[in-house]
């Protein structure tokens, strides 16, 4: 059964244990950083930072709200990275994890075209710019753990129950139950429908727009857009062939008739 993670933004205290646990489990190096006025170093996801908690201090009049939002690969149900990759380096596994085969399965197809990075609506995959033989890197949903039935490293480090790992369908039901039973929640499960649904889902007590989420997004998956067009390919292939054949036949016949007419037409006398 596909797994998922429910992120309850209202429960995060910004301790960033998840960030450290991710690096620790995946053996990612610490990168040099400089002072950040927001305190949320490192400043963005990159090839060695697969998850990051962004701090959102929201000022409304003299009231402050402060929320801490973990970001990582959303593990789309129909991943854009997978569809954009002509070498099939990405795959959505049955567990729910979207993994990169060159590193996870040691199947080196990737040619470094980075179409996946352009395709991803969440700007998640990152390139190892500083390596001679670079890979594309991103959160792998701790595929090595979850396939053994163990929760991802980040979830195991979460102190407050902000992150919950489980069967995706059960988590989705729980998310609805939580937002329905408490008026403080925004009535939306982010990831239920966004871009066709994702394995990681968010609920929040602060509007998602204020937390850096893209909210005005399609409920259709990115691959489905290309599918909308590409699905006509066989029809076009067959149809266009038929039309061309018909045209060819028509033209050919026309030419033949013309030729015959030319041949047999009475020659007019010059006047």
């Amino acid at each position, binding site marked *: 059964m596909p797994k998922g993670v429910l992120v309850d933004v209202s*429960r995060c*205290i*910004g*301790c*960033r*244990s998840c*960030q*450290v646990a991710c*690096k*620790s489990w995946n053996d990612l*190096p*610490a*990168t*040099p*950083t*400089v*002072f950040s*006025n927001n*305190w949320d*170093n*490192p400043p963005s996801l990159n090839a060695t930072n697969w998850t990051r908690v962004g701090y959102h*201090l929201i*000022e409304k009049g003299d009231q*402050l*709200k*402060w*929320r*801490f939002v973990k970001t990582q690969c959303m593990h789309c149900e129909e991943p854009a990275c997978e569809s954009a990759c002509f070498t099939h380096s990405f795959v959505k596994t049955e567990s729910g994890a979207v993994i990169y085969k060159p590193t996870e399965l040691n199947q080196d197809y990737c040619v470094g075209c980075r179409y996946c990075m352009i395709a991803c609506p969440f700007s998640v995959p990152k390139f190892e710019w500083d390596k001679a033989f670079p890979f594309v890197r991103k959160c792998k949903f701790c595929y090595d753990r979850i396939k053994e039935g163990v929760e991802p490293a980040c979830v195991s480090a979460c*102190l*407050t*129950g902000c992150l919950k790992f489980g069967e995706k369908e059960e988590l989705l039901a729980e998310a609805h139950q939580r937002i329905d039973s408490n008026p403080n929640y925004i009535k939306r499960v982010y990831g239920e429908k966004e871009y066709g649904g994702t394995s990681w889902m968010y609920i929040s007590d602060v509007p998602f727009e204020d937390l850096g989420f893209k909210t005005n997004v399609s409920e259709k998956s990115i691959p489905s857009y290309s599918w909308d067009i590409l699905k006509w390919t066989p029809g076009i292939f067959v149809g266009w062939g038929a039309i061309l054949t018909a045209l060819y036949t028509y033209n050919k016949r026309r030419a033949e008739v013309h030729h015959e007419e030319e041949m047999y037409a009475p020659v007019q006398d010059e006047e």
Partner: protein
Amino acid sequence: MTNHFEDYVNSDYFLIIGANPAEAHPMAMRHIGKAKAKGAKIIVVDPRFTKTAAHADIYVPLRPGTDIPFLYGLINYAIQNDLYQHEYVLNYTNASYLISPDYSFADGVFSGLEEKDGKLSYNNKSWSYQTDGEDIQKDPTLQDPQCVWQIMKKHVSRYDIKTVSNVTGTPEDTLKKAYALYCKSGKPEVSGNLIYVLGITQHSYGSQNTRATCMVQLLLGNVGLPGGGLNPQRGQSNVQGACDMGMLWNNVTGYLKVPDATKHATYEEYLKAETPKTGYWSNTPKFMTSTLKAWYGEKATKENGFCYDWLPKTEGKSHSHMDSYAGLEEGEIKGVFCWAENPSVAGPDAYHEVKALEKAEWMVCVDVFENETAAFWKRPGANPADIKTEVFLLPAAHIYEKEGTRTNSSRDVQWRWKSVEPPGQAKSDLWIADRLFKAIRKEYASGGRFTDPIMNLTWNYDKPGQDEPDLEKIAIELNGFKVEDGTVLGTFADLKDDGSTACGVWIYAGYYYIDPKETDPLLKVPATKRHGTEDKTGLAIYPKWTFAWPLNRRIVYNRCSSNPAGQPWNPKRPYIFWDGAKWVTPDVPDFGAKDAKTKEPNPPEKTAQAPFIMTADGQAHFFVPSGLISTSQMKEGPMPEHYEPVESPVKNPISKQQSNPVAKKWKGEFSKLAEVGSKDFPYVATTVHYIEHYQTGVRTRNSPYLVELMPEQFATISPSLAKQLGIKPGDDIIVSSARAEINCKANVLPIVRPLVVNGSPVEIVSLPWSWGFMGLSKGAIGNELTPFVACPNVTVPEYKAFLVNIRKA
């Protein structure tokens, strides 16, 4: 803490003041979060809008150092609006006790203030109860003007909302909302949990701040019951254990007083002076005698006063951290052991403390890394050639590299097993202490002054074939045993004052005891090693999870969870109650549940007489009376009163007494202070922690992952101050105080905002202190700016409110 972390789930209301658990005690937030999910309401009182405040229902900003006005405002509000718990106040506190007619209070000063040799101190004789022979006089109607209730009511009546707002800078409507919400916990069936930490204690009147928190909780009937309590979350993971083990200069183990040669020349005199006739401390002779038996074994006999004469004694002087550095400065102290401590970063006025270290002839540092104290001789600006101190650095094993116990804020004494071997030459602290003592004893073997205490000390911890001392032998000595056959004791009730029992830490009695009635083989281990997860009542009580001192009691003062008739205040959360014939509870009763002689249950009427067994009068104190043995006498008054921090931007708006008249101050290098309302240092600073860096940062600033998250030292200022000074986020700035100045980055966030005090805005600067010049992440030492002044009761420095200036670097 009176309660424990798991119990937080039972709380209906939280008042979190001077604490930021989301950064400093993240695991506590797990339990607070569980309560919140069940509907609990949270109030956070802090000068900064913290990560904890982000989860609060009401955030109350206040000026650093004005906790007493805030809390007194709350008490006054509860009394004026009749929101307190009457029956609790009348029966479980000294509200009805009559105070001497000589007691008085006027314009910020209590009766008895005297001046001797230019120093002020109180003669507290007039703060006593009225007595008739041995009997304390009471007025159960609470009408007598000399009763504690009336005195307190009058005392706090000056703290109305307008006055409080004028001092704290908190908007009046925020105060009203917060007071109204928290006073809901004054209903008998509702629990309010008051959490505080160093934001309350680190002031020149820190002990009185904690007294004010106690008064709030007693008034609202929140002490002794599930979901309630006074919960000071300890600042380090084992600081509770360190205090229990006698690491405070004024206590030996188990909070027994350190002998003072000016008061207790002989053992007889010690016992006479420190043993009250009533209350549980009346057992002091049993505890102290057993302690001496643990230390001196067979040598300790009744005839020689159990070798009391061998104990080192103070001479009526304080020997706190600050006094020791003043002693170094004056040349009185020649050598320093800095064991798992980093005062060059942690000490008040660290700039001058580290200079005082230069006067030491030798220093031994024991730590997991070479910290700023061990490296003080090569600190920026110092010339190693000029420093004569000989420094020894002993590499210590980290917590995961050694075995032993750690005691947390819940008083859980938890056994920890070693997970990895220490690297290189690093050794456990116990190994180092063991070899150190053996080396000292070897030196003394050839003679010296007063060799008896060294040569005769019990030190039999060797285990054949093992490099490390035998932990089990030490554990049993701490736990207590029968001298004749070594039987391990299950309770301190079995300790004797005749020398037949030995016990290193009386409050730990039972922690290494194996319950003979236990049937589960996994739980048939010393209590401290148990991991039982059964919670029979659903009240988050896990009696078989490790051992909580005292006596495996999880909530102390638990008689107060029931009314005087023995019925629970909250029938939905019955914790301890009288079923008509006996007491029923999942916990260990903290009162005389059974008659000591007949072993018959004591009925509710009797136990309600003394619900607080550790005080001599059996009651909790709104007013701390003088004349009671073993009741801590407050140095600056029987009740708190608002004083300004020693360095303050304003004149005290409450009274003419500007600051604590008996606050501890020092001379010479350590006397540098900014004047009241200083133009040179116009902003109020407070020191803070972030989750990424623990304490002085010795461990965390050497962890690449944590340095990545929080790489540089900074100071947080409000956008308004930044605008005024032309400072942008990330600019290099200089923060200066009357002691020193430091360079750091400017952090500009609206989490601090100016507060209007006495009609003028006061800007607040929040300054982390976890950086130093060693480690992967280097930065200026925040504590170089903090003042060298302290609370007179416990000598805690005033880290949390002082004056600074800021300019662009």
